[in-house]
């Protein structure tokens, strides 16, 4: 019996787009899990809004990946018919929501990076990626502001919120290193002026984090052991559960139009 999964020809450009699309979809999905359950209605709205931006980014990037692959795939096939080992997102974004502090710290780490990354990508020689970057940069600037404000409120709020925010930082820190790594294929895209080198953004990313952490009276961990694997499909156990929910309709009723 043939596999229900699609097989993607992962050329460097396809893989590049897929990785960013998967980051956006998985993080958007995680945030959407809050809808109806946030600590206040304003945050139900804000987290849904951010989720919508991310799902929108994912759709554009999947569509571009499908076009680059040129094998008749589309955004839904790429999102719904790849298994956990075929997903290419960062380990950070698949981490469970945990409490509100964990969700916001995850968002803060990611958005502080994404904001710099998309801004730099606006000068990509690939005009589609440059256009996606221009839209995503505007969105991530808001995401970063929202997350930063919450990190400060939680860090400098009550003893409990401080403790929870610090615990979230300590827990998620080990997943941040992966954002700055590239493989050979991506290195070639960087040389061609299509992608930007994320390592070049690390200094500024760290400055953003340090500034906000200081204001929030929180500390960044000294531990620099970083978990890797998401970019090549070696995920945490959490992602399989997320995908089984995300993909349940397409897996139960294959090939239908919805």
């Amino acid at each position, binding site marked *: 019996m043939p596999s229900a999964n699609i097989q993607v020809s992962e050329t460097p450009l396809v893989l590049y787009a897929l990785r960013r699309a998967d980051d956006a979809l998985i993080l958007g999905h995680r945030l959407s899990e809050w809808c109806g359950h946030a600590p206040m209605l304003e945050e139900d709205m804000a987290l849904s809004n951010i989720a919508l931006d991310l799902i*929108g980014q994912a759709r554009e990037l999947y569509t571009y990946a499908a076009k680059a692959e040129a094998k008749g795939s589309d955004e839904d096939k790429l999102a719904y018919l790849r298994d956990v080992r075929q997903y290419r997102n960062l380990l950070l974004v698949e981490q469970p929501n945990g409490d509100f502090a964990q969700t916001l710290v995850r968002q803060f780490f990611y958005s502080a990076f994404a904001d710099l990354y998309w801004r730099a990508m606006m000068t990509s020689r690939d005009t589609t990626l440059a256009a996606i970057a221009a839209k995503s940069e505007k969105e991530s600037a808001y995401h970063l502001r929202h997350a930063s404000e919450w990190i400060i409120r939680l860090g400098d*709020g009550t003893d409990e919120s401080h403790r929870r925010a610090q615990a979230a930082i300590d827990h998620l820190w080990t997943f941040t290193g992966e954002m700055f790594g590239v493989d050979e294929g991506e290195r070639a895209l960087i040389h061609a002026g299509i992608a930007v080198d994320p390592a070049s953004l690390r200094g500024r990313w760290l400055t953003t984090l340090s500034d906000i952490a200081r204001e929030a009276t929180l500390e960044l961990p000294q531990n620099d052991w970083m978990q890797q694997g998401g970019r090549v499909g070696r995920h945490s156990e959490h992602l399989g559960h997320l995908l089984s929910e995300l993909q349940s309709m397409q897996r139960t009723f294959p090939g239908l139009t*919805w």
Partner: protein
Amino acid sequence: MYTQALNTAETDDRGLEDAARAAQFQARIDAEERIEPNDWMPAAYRKTLTRQISQHAHSEIVGMLPEGNWITRAPTLRRKAALLAKVQDECGHGLYLYAAAETLGTSREELVDAMLAGKAKYSSIFNYPALTWADIGTIGWLVDGAAIMNQIPLCRCSYGPYARAMIRVCKEESFHQRQGYEIMLTLCRGSDEQKAMAQDALNRWWWPVLMMFGPPDATSQHSDVSTKWKIKRFSNDELRQKFVDATVPQAQYLGLTIPDPGMIQDAEGHWRYSEIDWTEFKQVLAGNGPCNRDRMAERREAHEEGAWVREAAAAYAAKRAQRQTAQAAE
């Protein structure tokens, strides 16, 4: 935390509510003038509106749950984004409505506490489960359709803040209704299994949706005075009939069967439905619907789990204000 500094009219109501003011108030209503937050109003008008607007707000918020339960499982990315945006709209409606209710002098916190304590009601329809993807289509088509039927006349409600909130809410609801119908259309043009899913959802939602318009006119306890105050402009049965007349042709176009074998079209073209099971309605209102306990438990859990976040935000705001005052003093 959410209280607004508006005239709480208690002293006015006690001291000044006299026949002359009440007559003047009624004359303004009769002249189709809008009543605004700082205007004098009878205590009962305030109470009725606070109850109605806050129930409406609670319904929007509890209404996020049955549909929210499908956001993580929506079958395509386009559907996922649309559903998330829709549920977000509902949250926004809840927010406007709480804000409108606050203009009558009760804080959002108090209103929410009353709901969480089980003292305030929300629409009975959200105590039914959304079991399949077709339920998402049906909720948009019928539940939002019924809500629009109820809410369009509220755009002319005598209380200004409520009327204005309703104008915006109705625009969005109408979009949701079309979106729901489009989901149904896609299912009905799909496989046999999809069409069966659509029919099954219609079968389960039809009667609860008719109950959304409230008890029959003969037994409705709030209608008379609400009509006099132009809060309500049509009776429950009038709105229900309008809804049925609008919906039957839509079901026919989809090729779906309304689950009412006794339904007939009368000489004037109205679709006459069979007797509604008001026992079920009363049981759902009394807390015995299939999801009442789950909905309340979910709302309470979100509220309790979020308490430390709200406390942190309040503590931080207080610290910041204190620092600003200290800086200003330097």
